[in-house]
């Protein structure tokens, strides 16, 4: 039997894969520790990784609210040739497009789904408690590797005996 946090990661990945429907060379996968090599990175990488879990609050003598936090790490390489006119910098329009893609395809779906029990919960019992883009992009990776890295953290809670 998988640990609950692993099930949560897999559930979030399964949900996101249904939303973004990645087509090669894009990839969406669950991971404990992944390594990308810049010169082989040919498309978007979306990874759901476990972050933490624990008791969030006690609800009753034998009932506790558990919280599970997962991170979705998005990498988008800029593959086009640099423009000398822009002194090699990535076009701001491209950055805008990727930031908008993350918002529309990762943040919004995670933030707006599994919120109300009547609309369905993650794995049937987990409510989306918080969703935050903790890194819109990493300016150093953007400048030095032409790679947009964005991180979205999501917390889910469920009430269990305990």
């Amino acid at each position, binding site marked *: 039997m998988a640990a609950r946090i692993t099930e949560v990661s897999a559930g979030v990945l399964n949900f996101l894969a249904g939303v973004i429907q990645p087509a090669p060379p894009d990839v969406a996968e669950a991971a404990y520790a992944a390594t990308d090599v*810049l010169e082989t990175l040919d498309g978007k990488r979306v990874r759901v990784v476990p972050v933490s879990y624990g008791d969030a609050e006690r609800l009753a003598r034998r009932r506790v609210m558990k919280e599970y936090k997962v*991170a979705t790490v998005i990498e988008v390489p800029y593959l*086009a040739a640099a423009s000398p006119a822009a002194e*090699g910098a990535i076009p701001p329009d491209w950055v805008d497009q990727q930031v908008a893609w993350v918002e529309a395809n990762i943040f919004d779906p995670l933030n707006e789904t599994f919120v109300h029990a009547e609309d369905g919960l993650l794995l049937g019992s987990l409510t989306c408690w918080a969703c935050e883009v903790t890194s819109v992009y990493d300016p150093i990776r953007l400048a030095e590797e032409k790679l947009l890295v964005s*991180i979205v953290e999501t917390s889910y809670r469920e009430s269990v005996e305990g």
Partner: protein
Amino acid sequence: MLQQAAEWLAATLATSEGVDVTYTRAGQTPITITVVPGRVRPERFALADGRVNLETEPADFLVKAEAIDFGSGPVEPATGDRITLAGRTYELMPRDGEPSWRPLTQYPQTLADGTTVVRCPMYRLRTIRVKVGP
């Protein structure tokens, strides 16, 4: 004396250690130039507290100042220029807070009319190995 030594060093390095590469700039016809491969120091960056890691292969090259000539006279390197060597593509990018290229050595030279110019026999190029898009 220093001027002669610097130019001798640049010429000797290019002759003895140089390799031919394809040098590309967007909007220009690619050219073949001789560069001297320098330090290669693979790096690894942790994303999301190390749950996702990124490996890169920065590499330095030395090039004679007059080598980069797309047909209208020598020009300076530029961020975004690409070097293709043995099937690998490297792109000039700023790195660790340093610019993507800089003069390796510089010395002042007084011309016949009495004016002084700064001459530079070689550039050091800072690059990183990249994936070339379709």
